[in-house]
């Protein structure tokens, strides 16, 4: 039994759903929220739930307009960037500050939910913030982001992959520009794992066949990702399902991993795999790239590291983005930040020198990364191309509060180890 699933019951869920679906009210004024499907369920503030095959245009508000074109950037004072602690090279901040004559500071959060909580409470007042597409409807409905004026961001049409110039979660890129992209897959050491994972009929199944690696197997400490793993293992590709039975079954399947391999739950495979604390891990594609560039022990053969991700439509592919915080005192500079981060050199350096997470730039391709030695040939699959995206791709996106509770409860049961 889970907290809320059967215990809280529908009686407590229904009013909340109603509040979110309609009580939040539409923020539409002028450019209202719209979606390609027309009948998709509503998320926060009545905004339709975006899916790769159901693009959503986010609403614009009369009292929250983009700045006019042609303004000069603000100078002096402090420009605050809001992001995860270790998801941006400090050199990028320094260089941006030097270029525009402003002191740049980094304000951080542990998780995107915590970041949104800080923004919503007003405890931080940054100028720009990192954001994830699945939370975008929330922050737009809550009026935390300002719309962007594309005339300040020539790098968006110039450098960015076509898919992200008008992504399905923000058609017309009204509020965001993309930052990084990554697949979720399997990261392992070929000297420890004997199975040929890519040739398995369903490679996701490897975690349930990992008795031989007991104590050295891990999954991501992220409810959506880990439940998605269990769904995909059963061949269910609707990783945004809100079906309580499917989610509960996925939770039960994950619970089996404790007896099968005493599974670890963390997000440190980039460190654990090369250093031998883990041999087989559910991971993001940025992890192996980070591992080969920053965490290899002396004398370790980087070719021993392997990464697999599912073909399009059979495994998650995600991205993160940047937005301008509503009420910023430096709106022009905030636009210039969005443009700066999409500069070919800045994006590449930030990726290669620090984050390990690939920017969605046309100039960054598997061939260039392999030829420069950034990524060994054996990890070519960790590099994403434009073809990996599209209406048939799978992306973990916004859910209704009731759906989120189902995921949280199933995951809670799994990580409680009972």
């Amino acid at each position, binding site marked *: *039994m*889970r*907290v*809320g699933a059967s*215990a*809280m019951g529908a009686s*407590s869920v229904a009013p*909340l759903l109603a*509040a*979110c679906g309609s*009580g*939040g009210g539409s923020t539409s004024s002028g450019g209202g929220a719209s979606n390609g499907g027309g009948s998709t369920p509503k998320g*926060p*503030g009545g905004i339709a739930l975006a899916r790769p095959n159901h693009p959503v245009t986010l609403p614009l508000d009369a009292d929250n307009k983009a700045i006019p074109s042609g303004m000069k950037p603000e100078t002096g004072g402090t420009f605050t960037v809001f992001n995860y602690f270790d998801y941006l090279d400090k050199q990028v901040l320094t260089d941006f500050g030097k270029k525009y004559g402003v002191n740049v500071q980094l304000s951080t959060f*542990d*998780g*995107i*939910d*915590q970041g*949104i*909580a800080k923004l*919503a*409470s007003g405890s931080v007042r940054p100028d720009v913030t990192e954001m994830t597409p699945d939370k975008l409807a*929330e922050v737009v*409905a*809550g009026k935390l982001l300002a719309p962007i004026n594309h005339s300040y961001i020539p790098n968006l049409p110039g450098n960015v992959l076509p898919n992200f110039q008008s992504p399905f979660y923000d058609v017309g890129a009204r509020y965001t520009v993309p930052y990084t992209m990554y697949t979720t897959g399997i990261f392992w050491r070929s000297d420890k794992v004997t199975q040929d994972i890519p040739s398995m009929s369903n490679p996701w199944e490897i975690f349930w066949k990992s008795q031989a690696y*007991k*104590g*050295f197997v*891990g999954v991501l400490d992220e*409810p959506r990702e880990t439940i998605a793993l269990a769904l995909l293992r059963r061949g269910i590709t609707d990783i945004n399902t809100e079906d309580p039975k499917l989610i509960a079954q996925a939770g039960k399947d994950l*619970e089996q991993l*404790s007896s099968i391999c*005493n*599974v*670890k*739950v*963390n997000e440190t495979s980039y460190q654990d795999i090369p*250093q*031998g*604390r883990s041999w087989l891990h559910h991971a993001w594609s940025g992890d192996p790239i980070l591992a080969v560039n920053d965490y290899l022990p002396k004398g370790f053969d980087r070719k021993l590291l392997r990464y697999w991700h599912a073909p399009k439509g059979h495994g998650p592919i995600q991205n993160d983005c940047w937005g301008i915080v509503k009420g910023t005192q430096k709106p022009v500079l905030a636009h210039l930040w969005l443009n700066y981060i999409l500069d070919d050199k800045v994006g590449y350096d930030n990726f290669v020198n620090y984050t390990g997470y690939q920017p969605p730039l046309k100039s960054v391709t598997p061939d260039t990364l392999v030829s420069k030695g950034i990524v060994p040939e054996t990890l070519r699959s960790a590099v994403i191309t434009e073809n990996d995206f599209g209406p048939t791709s799978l992306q973990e996106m916004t859910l209704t*509060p009731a759906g*989120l*509770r189902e995921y*949280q409860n199933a*995951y*809670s*049961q*799994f*990580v*409680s*180890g*009972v």
Partner: protein
Amino acid sequence: MYPRWLWRASALPGTVWLFLLFLVPLYAVVAIAFGDVSPIFQLPVPVWNPLDWHFEHMSQVLTLFAPSHELWLVFVRTLIYVVAALALSVLIGYPVAYYIARFSHRSRTTLIVLLLVPFLVSYMLRMLSWVNLLAPDGYVNSVLTGLGILRTPYDWLGGHGFVVVLGLVYGYVPYLILPLYATLDRIDQRHLEAARDLGASRFSTFIHVTLPLSKTGLLGGAAIIALPMFGDYYTTNILSGTPDTSMLGNQIDFYFHGGPQPTVGAAITVVLAAFLVVVMSYYLFSVNRAQKEMHAV
């Protein structure tokens, strides 16, 4: 002669401090446990007036604390870890405190400083250092295999409850030793000499005199380390990271860290706090009784 109110007034800063930094936050957690979540951001909305409280979250969390249910099993696991860590801490800490108080005349200051040194490094960093020491190719395995005690490196970090218990002991034992040392140091030597003069052996003197007289320090130290151990989540996160060693603190952290049910995290916190109040009541009762016994000696 100072007016009587002056002494009472001297307690005011501490009372204000306690009110602002303990009672108000505690009530905030209660108000969240019986509160709601915001419709858009799913953030906790505390309900301050008890007349407006929602009881469904608390009632369901209490259901999950029923025997054989999810939170009950996590609670039992946490209790076992804490009791085991407490027992080991006493076994390790008492002799150390006893030695410093009774026998370390010239080296006393040095030993106390050495005891305090770990406090200069954050708990998190001390735990992280163990990750490297206990790694498959870490120093612990190197020494044990080098000495022939182990044939192959042991997977210390593979998710073992005893490693979590040892981690808790390592992290908290200095907090037990210091109050225990202070109590042992204050024991009037004449009591011990009287026992010896009356024919008691060293062991008998320890059992019948030293141990009862150090009971308040022992209980105080035990309370000081047990309370944070119950809410601890990063020790098991760092040294194990497996669901099988998850503690109640991990569940609280999980619900507060994000997602649509911060009220559930707050409700678990309130239940744990209520249990600890019962434990602390026993502690206060025992200390009170021990002090009366001491005065009677």
